[in-house]
């Protein structure tokens, strides 16, 4: 069985972010990059499948050449092979999905697993788009995955509960926290990962042109969350204070 994992290299959310001069992008100079945390769960789930059922795990990503470092982290966790699609560095979710789907078509995996979202733009679109492009079923935000023959049983998390689905393979799933605890790579695996080949495929080779990678949308502006504090102290009896707090949160701050 062949399992493909979609992985994205994203800035560590602990980094200090600044809006770039154009006002429409993020300053990337001092950023540290990591594997998107939800993707770690996807890699872990795939490797567990490898350990249990002897699956072959291929990690797939599209991004700049530095993405290879992040792919190596996945290899160090125990993935067998990695592929990097180049030429889609500036693509949005729509273009990325096309690039990844084209690569997956060649790979023909029985199962695709991805994180439920990448924590850079939080678009939560790519895996679902990929499934649509490949014409396979998908289930998102899963917290449990079990395989029996060619049918996967998964739990999907929903507000206040979960429901269980049976999905015939090939299919795509996106992982939520709680499905597993990503493993800490062992030294022999880190060393082995350094030697593993990472296949690179250009978008042109996949038959995609500039039009295919178009975003289909334009970013107007990017802004940082407001950091300043109101510094307002609510006075009065406890019950009054709570009423006032709720009123401020609802009416003035529009949080509730």
């Amino acid at each position, binding site marked *: 069985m062949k399992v493909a994992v979609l992985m994205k290299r994203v800035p560590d959310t*602990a980094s200090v972010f600044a809006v770039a001069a154009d006002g429409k992008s993020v300053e990337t100079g001092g950023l540290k990059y990591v594997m998107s945390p939800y993707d770690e769960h996807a890699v872990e789930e795939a490797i567990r499948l490898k350990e249990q059922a002897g699956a072959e795990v291929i990690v797939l990503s599209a991004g700049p050449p530095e993405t290879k470092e992040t792919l190596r982290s996945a290899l160090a966790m125990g993935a067998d092979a990695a592929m990097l699609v180049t030429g889609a560095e500036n693509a949005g979710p729509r273009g990325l999905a096309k690039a990844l789907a084209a690569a997956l078509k060649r790979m023909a995996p029985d199962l695709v697993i991805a994180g439920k979202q990448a924590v850079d733009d939080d678009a939560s679109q790519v895996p679902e788009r990929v499934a649509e492009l490949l014409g396979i079923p998908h289930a998102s935000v899963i917290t449990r995955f079990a395989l029996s023959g060619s049918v996967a049983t998964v739990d999907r998390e929903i507000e206040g509960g979960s429901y269980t689905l049976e999905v015939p393979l090939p299919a795509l799933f996106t992982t939520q926290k709680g499905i597993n605890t990503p493993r*800490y790579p062992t030294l022999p695996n880190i060393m082995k990962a350094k030697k593993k080949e990472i296949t690179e495929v250009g978008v042109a080779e996949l038959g995609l042109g500039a039009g295919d990678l178009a975003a289909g949308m334009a970013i107007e502006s990017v802004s940082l969350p407001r950091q300043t504090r109101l510094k307002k102290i609510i006075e009065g009896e406890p019950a009054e204070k709570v009423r006032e707090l709720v009123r401020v949160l609802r009416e003035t701050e529009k949080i509730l």
Partner: protein
Amino acid sequence: MTLGGGVLLVLILAAHAVFFWRVYEIVRFVQLGKGAWPSGAVAERLKDLLLKGFGQRLVLRQPAGLGHLIIFWGFFILTYGTIEGLINGVLPAFSFAWMGPVYSLMNTLQDFFGLLVAAALLIALYRRLVLRPKRLEGTFIHTLDALVIIGLILALIVAFYALRVIEARPGFTPVSTFLHGLLLGAAQTSRADYPVAFGLFHWLHNLVVLGFLVYIPYSKHLHLITALPNLFLSKDGVRGRIEKLDLEAEGAESFGVARITDYTKKELLDAAACTECGRCQEACPAYATGKPLSPKEVILGLKAHLFAEGPALLRDPKADPTRALYPEIIEKDVLWACTTCRACEEACPVEILPMSKLIGIRQARVLMEGDFPEEAQTALRNVENQSNPWGLPQESRGDWAADLGVKTLAEEAAVDYLFFVGCAGSYDQRYMKVTRAVAQLLQKAGVSFGILGAEECCTGDSAKRIGNEYLAQMMAQQNVDVMNGYGVKKVVTACPHCFNTIKNEFPQYGGAFEVLHHTELLASLVREGRLAPVKRAGNVVYHDSCYLGRYNDVIDAPRALLTAAGGLIEAPRSQKNSFCCGAGGGRMWMEERIGERVNVNRSRELLATHAEAAATACPFCMTMISDGLKMEERPDVPVKDVAEWLLESCD
């Protein structure tokens, strides 16, 4: 030769055969360890052997050690007579009388030491049967073992005096003479007067000696054979350093200690040298607070494991052990309870290193299995991503200095000192204040210094002691390269963990720096009059950081500063015997779920001194003692770093 003499000769030969066969077997067990025996530094080793071995310097650090000194020297002195007695039993005409004055002197010494040893043994018996100090507790077999040995030596001494009472020896022998007068009257007697009694006691004496000889290598008294070589071979490596593993070694398949044979020969000798005195256990903060870890049990567990698996391993060194080193011999909660405070290694009278044994196993767990407490995994991932265990942005590392006019080496490299701030000093809200206090004091005294800012990263101390050698090496190398790039010569740091790593481990990465802890530099500034504190702080109890005091002998500097700033109160456990705060060895990043909290135990001790406030000199200690005092509901006792007390008294 008489028939009796012939029988004795056979017994002597048999006992020696058993003794030497067993010793040879143990030597081969110990040789199963990796690598070569330590070598070189013979003069220093001999000095250790003389002072710590024959001089019993480490043993004498506790009052009970005096008893051991007497028994130790008594053993050598009485052995003179023992050898004579054995030969004499075979060849009745034999004696050492031809040695003349030496013979008389030895007879005198034996006469005195017989009594001294007997007294020491009776005290030992009293301690084991009545006082029962916790450190001597063990399994029934271990206790019985000690009693058998005490009993054998006592029997030997009874027989010795009985023989001397019946037949006096040349020399000044007041004890024998007194006993003779008491038991046999004033007239001199010889063996001819009491042939049966003399013969019986002679046999008793010789049989006890031979029995003892056979018993030694099978008992805790194995240390008679192993302790002195262990002391001789112990000066190997740098205190405070965990040796760098060669992770790129050709053909290396495993790292750390997964099997007993992954230890070095010297480490296995450590296990065989244990005297079961329990001083390590008594000093261990994990044991004291109800964790399943006892350094004594760790060493005894390894010894028993080695001796049990030894025969099979001698036949086939690759043989699978019947019991796994981890988690069977050393259990999970034992392994991760260690705070690496090194109290056990400091306490051991024969320089066994229990802590280091655990680090080896941790390395195997982390490097080979990726298996270690989950909370610590978060901290180490953070170190990987942002070079600090909190995972806060690396770019913000120098933010604390923004309004102080402190320059980075990138801005101004020609400074006397690099102030290595460390992760806590850069990110921990409370410890940032300490960092600022240190910087302000240095500025006040006109010291030329700079920081690395965002170019500094974690030294890898926690990673190293959790067992993640790979990450620790990465961090250390990165720092050393940056520091060498700026031509750094002298370093001052406000973190004892950074201090220890930079001082003792960075040289392995090509980083040779002169390192001072901030209290050392500040103390010299006060001495030189560049800082002029006025006594203000009141009575402050000082909590020694393990990595500062016990690891690196920085004991006087913080005390000098506190004395200059106010009044210093000593905690009962202090200086080299200080009690850990509980955060070393990566414990800072793990939950403490078993037993009492180490920091609460320590905080209670500090409170019991009735000090008005507490002083620390380490970010981990600061966090732990602050939390401990909070849990004891004593917010009225403030905790400040030595530098903060000093700054207050300099304003």
